[in-house]
């Protein structure tokens, strides 16, 4: 069965009820559709071979404006006759016309037709009688012309060919009297084809088609009576942009979860830091190149901070100068208190973890931080002046370098990096130090992610930390660039909506 619209179905059903062949107006009347809707349906039914259209010329008679008033009040001759009868069957024409409320013009018309139809006589009672008298003897039945008139006023225009012979003659009479019009018209008749008949015999269900399922349809249960229109399910919809976390934030959260699952506690420290905590406490000599202006952001306002525990500061100073009691040779220079008070934007999160260690001495300690750090770098596709560092430390009785390697292996495994090697490297405040190299299956390359080591005695002793401290750190952006397939690190902080919206929320 071909797909049929509701109007097509209605048209076919009406045609069947009308015996298989009928005019458009009949089909319209039967189906309850307007003519134009029937014609539109017919057009597509013809193309489907279900309906054939016959065109037939015919005459249509309709009433004129003058005719309309006659239809209401009766033809003038009928009104004159009725008045005459009421006046006793005999009266002067003027008298009868006055009674019938006919004006002079209509009186002449009425008189003419009255006489012509032989409904009355007009005569002079005597030869010299001053006026004529109109006289009738009986009532007259409705003529064909009057029947036609009432039919037309009742039903509207009719085809001449469908009328009885008497009425057809009346059409001609009334047309000449200007009471009706006759117009030539082409009528379309619709006929069911063989195919159409087959279809209607099989039965057509008449169902309304609906695009939107409405609360009203659901509540009333009317959804059962309608057909929910079929949609083009392959057509794409308009783009939708859900609210979402920044791609970099997704990665931060993922790594935070790794740390938390591994039993690490999150710490948060100042972004503005004294040189003391950022450098001195980590045994970075005051003339170290990393402390120079071109590598570190110093502050103009506020420019110096406070060094809290004077004894602690003195111990740090001693370690720098001659190693204090640690057995180290120290850096052999004269340590400057003022230099240590200078405020910087912290260059690593170790400034925060070392602060934590100075305040928390009871083992075991496992803390981490994923937070902002700053370097006075020229910004380009590889470098930022502000970025994030990932850092973790463990302080515990009897932990060893091998424990550090074990924790790091697990940390990498949780990030999906199963193949990890550790090679020697150098960091100023750890010894031994190592660099983790993780193999990326997808890129077939080794990635250097985490630097690590055991804090030097010169770092721990002045802070009175009694147990070994294992530490590691990594750049977040480097990992993010790999995970997100970003080539230019600046993109991570551009908040380019095309990129943010286009990056999947779920990263594998």
């Amino acid at each position, binding site marked *: 069965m071909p797909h049929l619209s509701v109007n097509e179905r209605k048209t076919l059903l009406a045609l069947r009820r009308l015996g298989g062949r009928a005019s458009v107006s009949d089909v319209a009347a039967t189906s309850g559709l307007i003519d134009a809707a029937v014609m539109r349906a017919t057009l597509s039914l013809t193309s489907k071979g279900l309906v054939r259209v016959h065109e037939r010329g015919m005459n249509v008679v309709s009433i004129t404006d003058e005719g309309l008033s006659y239809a209401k009040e009766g033809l003038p001759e009928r009104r004159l006759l009725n008045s005459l009868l009421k006046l006793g069957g005999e009266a002067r024409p003027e008298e009868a016309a006055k009674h019938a409320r006919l004006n002079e013009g209509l009186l002449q018309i009425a008189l003419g037709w009255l006489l012509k139809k032989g409904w009355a006589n007009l005569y002079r009672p005597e030869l010299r009688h001053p006026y004529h008298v109109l006289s009738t003897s009986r009532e007259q039945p409705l003529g064909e012309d009057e029947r036609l008139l009432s039919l037309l006023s009742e039903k509207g225009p009719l085809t001449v060919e469908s009328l009885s012979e008497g009425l057809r003659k009346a059409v001609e009479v009334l047309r000449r009297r200007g009471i009706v019009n006759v117009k030539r018209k082409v009528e379309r008749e619709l006929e069911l084809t063989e195919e159409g008949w087959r279809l209607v015999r099989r039965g057509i269900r008449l169902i309304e088609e609906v695009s939107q399922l409405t609360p009203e349809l659901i509540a009333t249960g009317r959804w059962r009576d309608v057909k929910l229109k079929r949609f083009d399910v392959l057509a794409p919809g308009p783009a939708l942009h859900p*609210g979402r976390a920044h791609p970099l934030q997704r990665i931060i959260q993922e790594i935070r979860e790794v740390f938390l699952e591994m039993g690490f506690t999150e710490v948060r420290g100042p972004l*503005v830091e004294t040189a003391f905590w950022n450098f001195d406490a980590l045994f970075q000599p005051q003339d170290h190149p990393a402390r120079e202006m071109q590598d570190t952001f110093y502050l103009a306002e506020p420019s110096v901070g406070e060094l809290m525990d004077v004894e602690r500061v003195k111990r740090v100073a001693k370690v720098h100068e001659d190693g204090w009691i640690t057995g*180290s040779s120290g850096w052999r220079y004269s340590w400057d208190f003022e230099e240590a008070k200078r405020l910087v*934007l912290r260059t690593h999160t170790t400034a925060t973890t070392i602060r934590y260690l100075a305040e928390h001495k009871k083992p075991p300690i496992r803390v981490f931080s994923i937070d902002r750090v700053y370097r006075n770098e020229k910004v380009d596709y590889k470098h930022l002046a*502000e970025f994030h560092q990932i850092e973790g430390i463990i302080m515990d009785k009897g932990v060893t370098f091998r*424990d550090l390697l074990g924790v790091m292996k697990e940390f990498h495994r949780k990030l999906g990096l199963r193949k990890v090697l550790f090679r020697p490297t150098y960091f100023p405040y750890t010894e031994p130090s190592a660099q983790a190299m993780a193999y990326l299956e997808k890129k077939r390359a080794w990635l250097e992610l985490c630097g690590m080591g055991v804090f030097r005695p010169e770092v721990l002793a002045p802070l009175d930390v009694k147990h070994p401290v294992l530490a590691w750190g990594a750049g977040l952006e480097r990992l993010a660039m790999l995970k997100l397939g970003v080539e230019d690190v600046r993109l991570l*902080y551009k*908040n380019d909506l095309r990129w*943010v919206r286009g990056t999947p929320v779920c990263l594998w």
Partner: protein
Amino acid sequence: MPVVTLHQERFSELVGRPLTAEEMAKWLPWIGLDVEEVGRDYVRVEYSPNRVDFSSHVGVARAFKGLMELEVGLPQYEVKEGDIVVNVDESIGEVRPYILGAVVKGLKLDEDVVKELMEMQEDLHWGVGRNRKKASIGVHDLNAVEPPFAYTTADPDAVKFVPLGWAKEASLREILAKHEKGLAFRHLINWALRYPLLIDKRNEVLSMPPIVNGELTRVSPRTKDVFIDVTGPDFNAVTKCLNVFVTALADLGGVVESVVVKYVHQELISPDLRPSTVRLRLDYARRLLGLRITERKAVECLNRCRLGAKAIEGGVLEVSIPAYRIDILHEVDLVEELAIGYGYYRLKPKMPATITVGEQHPTSKLVNFVRQIMIGLGFTEAMNFTLTNEAIHYAKMRGARGKPIRLANPVSSEYSMMREELLPSLLKNLADNVHESYPQRLFEVSDVLRIEPKAETRSERRPHVAGVSAYANASYTEARCIVDSLLNNLGVKRWKIKATRHPSFIPGRVASIYIGRKKVGVLGEVHPEVLNNFGIGNPVAAFEMDLEPLMKFKR
């Protein structure tokens, strides 16, 4: 990090066995070098600034031979007694007091080696000499001058010589004012009345430390015998520079001869290439590494790192450190050497036995709740820098210039201060995205920084949240709905909205957010002038709120 390019052929020759670039790249990381690039016949490696001895082929080869067990233990350096004297004039004491020297004879140099020596010299100047401040090196063709030498000072206008790279002679003052090196390093001596000078018997100038050598003693591939001077105000740095440099020349096949440095009150024989010794307690090493290692094995491991080692008493080794190893400060450094000699790749990772319970920072917890609500409200997260500038932060926002944390040495005009609010960057984000589809709803939940005179660091970081909604129908009502929803979903009870005035917002369409009696934020419809300033073509509903009071409120 400094870099050195190792040529496969030369390196193989020094190691004494044929090696491919791949083989080099495979093994070099295990002595602590970071392979940057592997070419067909070369390998580029990065080395740590504390291992200046890695700045030459010979230095790397020395360590490599140990690792491969081709030559282990302490390298021996013989210093023949020489008769060259360097007289130190008393006047130098105030400018650049120390000098040490050495003679190396019988060198077979070529272009490559000369170039490498210069690079090594520069690495030492930077790494140990702190850009020539603490020490600087001069290398001279010995046969161009006549000993004894004098390390003295001279009047800037009285002496003239031809500096390296110039064709004409010039006075010391002229050199300082015009020579490339003079301009770079003049701050090290230009405050003195008389400038340092190294001259020979005939008053010919060897160098003007630490600025530039004389053209007279230029070293060329034909040079056989050299005189090396190292000067500086830091005797320790001076010694280190000399030792690293001379041992490299000795490994190149040169014969080292001593010089006598005559100070006013004492005489030094230089160079002193005898190894220093540090004791290593094996228990300490075992505990730190988590490695059960025998005394014999430990000695082997140290030997592979070119250190000498012998047991002196129960569980203690006396470790001899060659003169070029200037990075050993403490026993702990020897523990790492031991691990390197053992091979990091052979250390079995293990997990610590202690169990700990992890915990989020309370600020992160709150910030994550806020993030979750904002995402639920259909907002996209932005991440901006805390570094910003006055133009974006104040001028474009129609605000008065505040008193923010300012940088002393901004790298560019883009970053000159720390942000006090999040909204300016979010508006900048909208301006950068005008070609993307609307509505655009962005939020940020992150830190702002402020001066706080009572704090130890005279500053504080506070978590804020801010949001912007930009599209044709954005209005105050939307900002209000968002703030209501955010506060209610955070479970905040006593909050109020009060009408206010704010230069960044349209009058009559802006309000303050209060929690209890504390004003915590602002919301409203952004002023069209602000939108013009940023170049945003759509109305923007916005809000910003300090989250720090919520931290206290929660507790």
